[in-house]
């Protein structure tokens, strides 16, 4: 339970970090909170030759609402979301979701952007990013590019990020008051990796769903929106029957992973449940 040898680098500016990545990104790893990387190194499942410590790059420690986006700097910790970081349904959703991420002490260290870069299939933040349509801002010495969440997550622990690139920021759209959000996750114990989870955002007018974003995580090798379920819901009145139809559509569309805690049939069953419950939560108290 001791890591293999590595060299440690702690730049204090973004430029210095990008320079390190440019020369040694292939066999190096960026560390911020170390939530997943440190255990993987201690198990010797990850053996980076170099470790680039982001924590000294103060310019990336920000979290602010700006121009319709929530801008999440690379050093923003999970704990920063314990209270809504912005108003409206986006802020409410984030404050709800964060309670499902690991445990309180871990949330003090782990970062939002680190979760996005790591791309665990059961990452709550990856699911939120996919569902809301986040923009991932990646920078290298060659420049900056913005990658939509739908193009960013490729597979389990695999993203579109290049070895010389750093996620400097993740941007989430701030939904207006016409939207409602909901989230439901099932894990074996509080704080465990979710076996299935659903995040939803619905724009509802006069009791009818006008737009729907439904994302499922923990079920397939990366979190993704569920077009069939979204289509099943749009145009429908907010009601249990419509939720059940959307949940069935999710269950029919997903191709679940299998592991020790869940086979495909059980994960499918869970995805149906978390979807139905996330929709119910989004519309709870809406009077319909």
């Amino acid at each position: 339970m001791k890591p293999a040898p590595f060299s440690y680098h702690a730049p204090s500016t973004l430029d210095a970090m990008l320079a390190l990545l440019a020369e040694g990104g292939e066999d190096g790893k960026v560390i911020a909170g170390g939530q997943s990387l440190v255990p993987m190194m201690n198990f010797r499942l990850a053996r980076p030759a170099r470790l680039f410590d982001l924590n000294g790059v103060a310019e990336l420690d920000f979290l602010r609402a700006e121009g319709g986006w929530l801008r999440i700097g690379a050093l923003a910790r999970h704990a920063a979301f314990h209270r809504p970081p912005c108003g409206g349904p986006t802020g409410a959703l984030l404050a709800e979701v964060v309670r499902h991420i690991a445990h309180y002490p871990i949330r003090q260290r782990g970062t939002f952007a680190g979760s996005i870069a790591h791309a665990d299939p059961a990452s709550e933040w990856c699911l939120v990013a996919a569902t809301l349509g986040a923009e991932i801002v990646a920078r290298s010495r060659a420049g900056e590019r913005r990658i939509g969440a739908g193009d960013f997550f490729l597979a389990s622990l695999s993203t579109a990020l290049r070895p010389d690139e750093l996620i400097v920021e993740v941007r989430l759209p701030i939904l207006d008051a016409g939207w409602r959000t909901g989230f439901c996750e099932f894990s074996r114990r509080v704080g465990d990796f979710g076996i299935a989870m659903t995040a939803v955002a619905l724009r509802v007018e006069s009791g009818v769903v006008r737009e729907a974003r439904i994302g499922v995580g923990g079920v397939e090798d990366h979190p993704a929106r569920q077009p069939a379920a979204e289509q099943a819901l749009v145009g429908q009145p907010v009601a249990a029957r419509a939720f059940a139809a959307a949940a069935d559509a999710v269950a029919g569309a997903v191709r679940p992973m299998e592991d020790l805690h869940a086979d495909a049939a059980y994960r499918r069953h869970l995805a149906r449940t978390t979807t139905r419950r996330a929709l119910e939560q989004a519309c709870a108290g809406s009077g319909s």
Partner: protein
Amino acid sequence: MADGPTRYIGMPHKRLEDRTLLTGGGRFAADLSAPGQLHMRVVRSPVAFGRLRSVDVREARRLPGVVAVWTFADVERIPPIQIRLTKIGGLEPYQQTVLARDYVRYVGDPVAAVFAEDPYVAEDAAELVFPEIEELPACISATEPPREFMPETLPGVSSEAACVTKAYGDLDAAFAAAHEVVELEVAVGRHTGVPLETRGALAEFDPAKGTLTMRGAAKVPHYNRGQVARMLDMPDEMVHLIQGHVGGGFGVRGELYPEDVLVCHAALRLKRPVKWVEDRQEHLMAANHSRDQSYRLRAAVDARGFILGLQAEVFSDQGGYVRTHGVTVPDLSAAMLPGPYLVPAYRADVHVRLTNKTPAGTYRAPGRYESTFARERLLDAIAHALGRDPVEVRRVNLIPRDRMPFDRGVDTLGTRVVYDSGDYALLLDKLLAYLDYDRLKQALAARRAAGEHVGFGLGYFVEKSGLGPADKAVISIDAEGMVEVVTGAASIGQGIETAMAQICAEVLEVPIERIRVVHGRTDRIDYGMGAFASRVTVMTGCAVKAAAEALLEKLAGAQVGTPASAEGWFRADHMTYPYGIHAAVVRVDPGTCAVHVERFVVAYDIGRAVNPMLVEGQIVGGAVQGIGGALFEEFVYDANGQPLVTTFGDYLMPTLAEVPPVEALVTEDAPATQNPLGVKGAGEAGINGAGAAIAAAVDDALGRPGAVTRLPVTPIRLHRLLGERD
């Protein structure tokens, strides 16, 4: 004493241990260091079963900072680890050597040991040790037919190491007279006690004195001292084992393991202190596992559900080797299966089978967690078969008070099982009154009618405690009136300093603050049994009482301030038998297939409590572990014998969020008749019936009697169970 003697026994005195622990003064194995120490890292087999052809250590030895790398050839003179408890003939071939000789028998089997200047280098070097293993098909089930244990080197030695049989009464007559025969097949999964502190040791050789000292001892320091001395060919008195703070034992920590012997041997051979701290992944593969038993039960019952005869065939998965516990778990399973019921005719055959999993040993309520689950599932099945209430069927079978003491007709751990005292029907009545049982049943029925899946279940059990043969204590008082109680018991976190001090204070009539309790040190007392089998309060407690009384006698008429010392012994031929009932209310969420424990109640007759607060603490902690085994914890292996559960990411112990506040209903209606304090043990009260109660409650919640046949009831299993009905 102006106010008359202060009472200590029976009072919820705060733990004397806690000030040090709460202020960060604890010294656990990993906290210990010695100048110039080396660090040991064990290289473990990556395959479950195979012929070990060679171990290439050349590259590892070349790594800077590495002092030594050992394989079996370096330790071939060290005999295998002997059996401490329940040693029966014929087990010798199954004992484990400290490093694998010619076969590896589980993933985690030690094949080499690296000694290096720091733990990082030791781990780097361990990666450079290359065992050449010819992999063989693994056996991962004790219900499969036996095979050869080590075919090439021990031809003809079967993987069934023993069959433990216990029987009495006329079983044929019972089945001939049966109104109905109820059959059942159930199993308890593989799980174990997982202490917060992993194993660890620091061994030092003092060349001036010629003594070897191992710190990090836990459960049975005196026994282990003798074994280390024997295995390393030293006189007993030149070896000392010393216990510091211990972060939990549960039967698992503190048995003699290969690593303990390796550390001691290395300190002697390398002439430097040697430290070893196990990591969690190693712990989950290398420290004793437990449970993992399958039961096939047949009961002959009359029309009321009275059991005329019970026949059991049990398969006990021993894992790769027979370790220090010998056949303790199978023996207790067979002896304790009849539990609190009369059962006039009985036979159990327990097959002890070696498989290619981590070796198994005892875990809190060994052989009882499993047998209680099987027996209570059977009682529920009988109730269902006859259309009778489960509580009433139990009542019909309970041993009546006027049959006490009750000779169970079997023996275990070398002593006849004679229930010394008990009023089983009374405890059942008290529990039902506490629960307001009829109203509880109505409330649950109403919730079920409203669409919820809620249910109630209980499990009745008899515990055992106070295993002999003897314990010793030495108490001395100095000129200032400070009292020292030296025991051979071990503290594994259960609060023995407090309990022993209370007993001493009560007898001597001195304030408890003046008493210091010593334990777990072979250099302070020549006899000690450590801490296991819920024996310390009974055995050590009575020895402390005897020593305190002897001291009083010596001091009679002496001047105040006269220093004095006295020793006391307590001997017991028979154990004492507390008993209890676990009751659970659970809710099943069909959407997630999760089981939520809403209420968990433990009714337990302790005979007499030395410290009710500590008793309650034991019960709550045990219940949490019991719920863990019922719903969460399981070591799963794939078909090749690869362990799939080797981290806390997959070995799921319940947290505060998964358990309700445990309600303890402790009674003192049946004091022990075999000891002067009237005390019985508390250590295993909280865990024994947890699997049984939760299984019954899940059945009830699903409205499907007999649905649960296997623990743990995981969501994936429940999903399959619910799917079967569609």
